[in-house]
């Protein structure tokens, strides 16, 4: 199994804050890697650094054998990276359709793929021509994910998709992500919800203070409650 | 150190230049009593104070105002209109001050409360609009301001050039009303600059800098940023209006071109950036460089332009024409924002180190 994405000794500074302090990990192709950790551990910063929204101040990042730590965000995206930010960042002034038209960089929307997306995000079909700003939180999250998968991407970076959503919607969303995973996607997924992480993850990384403090199989961590307590502590309060 | 509020020039070269400039200004009436030299020296004094007050806004709070000449103009016109309508008396001067300063302050307060809660760009645009409306107003309300012609007036007896206080024989130079006016301006400008130095080094000044660095954090720390910014705006307006009053006293005239025009605003911007933002001292350096260049470099450009014209070169005569000196200054301005954002003072304080 090859590693699609590797980070080696990555440091990131934002302003005068030293946020990532030597991050090393690899994301194997075709699997879902969970990135866990308490708030402020550097999970979102890791994703932002990979996609190039923040420039790594040191270290190497490779995507599919290509070095990207000095590339600009659009160039990284064009290598086949889909990004679902924590804020969802749907373009609220644009319709659902227009959001997806923009996301389909390489040409017109592909009907078959669209049908596949509608099969698990039916709301997007219903509100196809509505302003994205008028969608509910869960629907916006679906649109944000749909944007990342509207064309095949090598790697999906997804930042806390379940954050702030009602439990019923979280369950549905996990189902959808599982479907995307079955479709063969490689995913790096930041998640606070341990239940979701256990459902989806193959591999797991735990961050603290800008470093990776644990790496291994998700199943192993899921089975070891003591390890969970030690690594994740308070962050598991929401754990079902 | 007390008089400098614990904020000395912090550079030997800068200290030397400042001493030379200030000493030069102090002895100008004794050494160069000619009208041109006196005018240049006066203008340097007045603009040093005016630019220093602008630096309080631009350098210390990071807000760009295009309404600074408006306050300068209010001061000028207050003196001019008072002396014009009440006749040349000290009571008229006092009336001008008593009306002009509160007016400037109220206007600054209104603008500040109205638009300082938004970010720098918005504030810059609004001040530009307000200032241009004020300029139009001043040149149209002829019954009050004299319109485009402005208002000329007579000074009180004591300040008139014809008033000889000490004749040439006694001291080797003549102390007349003109020289007295000059020293009045010199001392008032120096006092205002020292006062501004005190302001920026007070706890209040530190808050302003905190706001400039990070407005949100300053707000999070519990500072009412709008209050502080408005307060700074009012202080700057008061100093600008005072500088305008001095200007009117020296010129015995106030008109749109000498006190309100947009080009004066640009001059102020150029001076503060070239001298060094956020230093106060930069105002003295910037004003000196700019006004000396304005008065003496233009002659040089005229000569160069004529030479180019005689040599039959295309374009150059036009580009080097003395009236085009702002072209070169504008280029210098852009270059200094880009390459020397800290201006002359910043350069002298932190000479560029060769990177290894």
């Amino acid at each position, binding site marked *: 199994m090859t590693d699609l994405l590797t980070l080696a000794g990555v440091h990131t500074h934002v302003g005068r804050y030293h946020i990532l302090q030597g991050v090393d990990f690899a994301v194997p192709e075709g699997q879902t890697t969970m990135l866990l950790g308490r708030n402020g551990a550097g999970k979102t910063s890791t994703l932002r650094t990979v996609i190039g929204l923040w420039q790594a101040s040191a270290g190497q990042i490779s995507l599919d054998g290509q070095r990207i730590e000095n590339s600009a965000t659009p160039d990284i995206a064009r290598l086949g990276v889909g990004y679902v930010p924590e804020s969802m*960042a749907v373009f609220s*002034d644009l319709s659902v359709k227009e959001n997806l038209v923009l996301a389909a960089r390489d040409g017109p929307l592909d009907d078959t793929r669209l049908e596949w997306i509608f099969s698990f995000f039916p709301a997007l079909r219903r509100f196809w021509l509505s302003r994205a700003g008028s969608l509910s939180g869960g629907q916006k999250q679906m649109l944000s994910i749909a944007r990342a998968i509207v064309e095949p991407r090598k790697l999906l970076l997804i930042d806390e998709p379940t954050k702030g959503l009602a439990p019923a919607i979280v369950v549905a969303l996990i189902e959808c992500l599982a479907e995307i995973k079955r479709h063969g996607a490689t995913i790096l997924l930041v998640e606070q919800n341990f239940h979701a992480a256990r459902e989806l993850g193959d591999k797991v990384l735990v961050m603290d203070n800008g470093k990776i403090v644990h790496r291994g199989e998700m199943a192993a961590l899921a089975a070891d409650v003591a390890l969970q307590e030690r690594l994740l502590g308070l962050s598991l309060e929401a754990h079902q | 150190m007390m008089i400098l509020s614990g904020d000395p020039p912090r550079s030997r070269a800068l200290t030397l230049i400042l001493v030379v400039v200030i000493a030069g200004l102090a002895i100008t009436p004794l050494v160069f009593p000619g009208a041109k030299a006196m005018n240049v020296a006066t203008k340097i004094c007045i603009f040093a104070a005016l630019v220093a007050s602008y630096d309080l806004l631009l350098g210390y709070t990071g807000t760009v105002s295009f309404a600074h000449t408006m306050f300068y103009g209010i001061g000028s016109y207050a003196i001019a209109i008072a002396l014009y309508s009440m006749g040349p008396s000290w009571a008229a001067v006092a009336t001008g001050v008593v009306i002009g300063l509160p007016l400037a302050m109220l206007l600054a307060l209104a603008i500040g409360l109205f638009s300082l809660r938004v970010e720098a760009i*918005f504030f*810059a645009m609004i001040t530009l*609009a307000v200032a241009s409306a004020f300029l139009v*107003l001043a040149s149209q309300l002829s019954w009050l301001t004299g319109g485009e012609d402005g208002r000329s007036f007579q000074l009180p007896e004591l300040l008139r050039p014809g008033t000889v206080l000490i004749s040439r024989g006694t001291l080797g130079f003549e102390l007349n009303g003109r020289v007295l006016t000059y020293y009045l301006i010199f001392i008032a400008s120096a006092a205002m600059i020292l006062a501004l130095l005190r302001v920026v080094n007070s706890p209040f000044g530190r808050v302003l800098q905190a706001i400039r660095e990070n407005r949100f954090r300053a707000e999070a720390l519990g500072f009412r940023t709008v209050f502080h910014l408005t307060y700074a705006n009012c202080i700057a307006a008061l100093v600008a209006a005072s500088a305008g009053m001095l200007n009117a006293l020296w010129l015995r005239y106030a008109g749109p071109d000498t006190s309100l025009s947009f080009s004066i605003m640009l001059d102020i911007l150029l001076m503060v950036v070239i001298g060094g933002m956020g230093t106060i001292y930069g105002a003295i350096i910037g004003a000196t460089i700019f006004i000396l260049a304005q008065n003496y470099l233009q002659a040089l450009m005229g000569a160069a332009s004529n030479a180019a014209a005689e040599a039959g070169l295309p374009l150059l005569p036009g580009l080097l024409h003395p009236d085009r000196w*702002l072209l070169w200054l504008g280029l210098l301005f852009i270059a200094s924002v880009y390459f020397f954002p800290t201006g002359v003072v910043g350069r002298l304080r932190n000479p560029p180190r060769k990177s290894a």
Partner: protein
Amino acid sequence: MTDLAAIAALPKPKRDFLPVLLPVILALAMLPLIGSGSSWVTLTVASFAMGMMIFIMASGLTLVFGLMDVLNFGHGAFISVGAYVATLVLLPLASWVQADSLLTNLAVLAPAAFLAMAVSGALGLVVERVLILPVYGQHLKQILMTTGGLIVAEQALYALWGPQIIPLPLPTSLRGSFIIGDIAIAKYRLLAMLVGLVVFCGIQLVLNRTKIGLLIRAGVENREMVEALGYRIRRLFLGVFMVGSGLAGLGGVMWALYREQVHASMGNDLTVLVFIVVIIGGLGSIGGCFIGALLVAMVANYGGFLVPKLALVSNILLMVAILMWRPRGLYAVTSR
């Protein structure tokens, strides 16, 4: 495409129509004050024509701000440059301008306008690369750099063309008015209205119907996400900046013809007006800019007719009134 358009959408969110009604309400409210119906029509047409010219000049500025958070204080320079460049065509071909044939007149006006747009647009390229790119994201320096650019451009125009006012007569067939009953409507104003509407519709079409337009609208809202979708927003921005500069140049030509003279200070004078329009409309909003331009022109024309003294500060009063009502302008586009 599957037949998705037929699917019922959410109930439309309430569109904010109040600002759109504002010019209409203002115009109707003025009717009884002005008294004479024919004067009212003349003034209203004049407002519309003036508003359209200001809109053309302001549209680029507001888009550039919305997209990249860049405010070009030197925007007025493009206006002046456009006007001067047009004289390069209009003055040598004066005989065409004076010919009493609409076709001949337009045959010289159109190339003059296109040249003005092209040169202003090209200058926009230089300004963006030299003055804005190096200080991108730093507001204070942006204001200073572009103000410096304004000084240099104005002085360069004086150096190249001299400081005197250049008269620029209107083409013969655009002089005079159409008389309908006792209503007189200046021909040139009709042309200005027409051009303004074409520009407005053109911008709206591009923004709503093309992928570039979608990108611009998306970029106004969230630059980072547009980049994360793989689009080079810097290039998009450069394009918008150049088009905006070109439009300012077009507005400059139209304004110069309206006033029948060209002078380097016109850019400066109009900058203030353009800023007021952009503030009133809400920075970044094309629709707001359109309404703002109309309102400013109406206040100037009606005000000038009713209370000439007030006309001097009427724009400021309008701005204050609008900002009291909506502190971020009529249409607040971005969260910035």
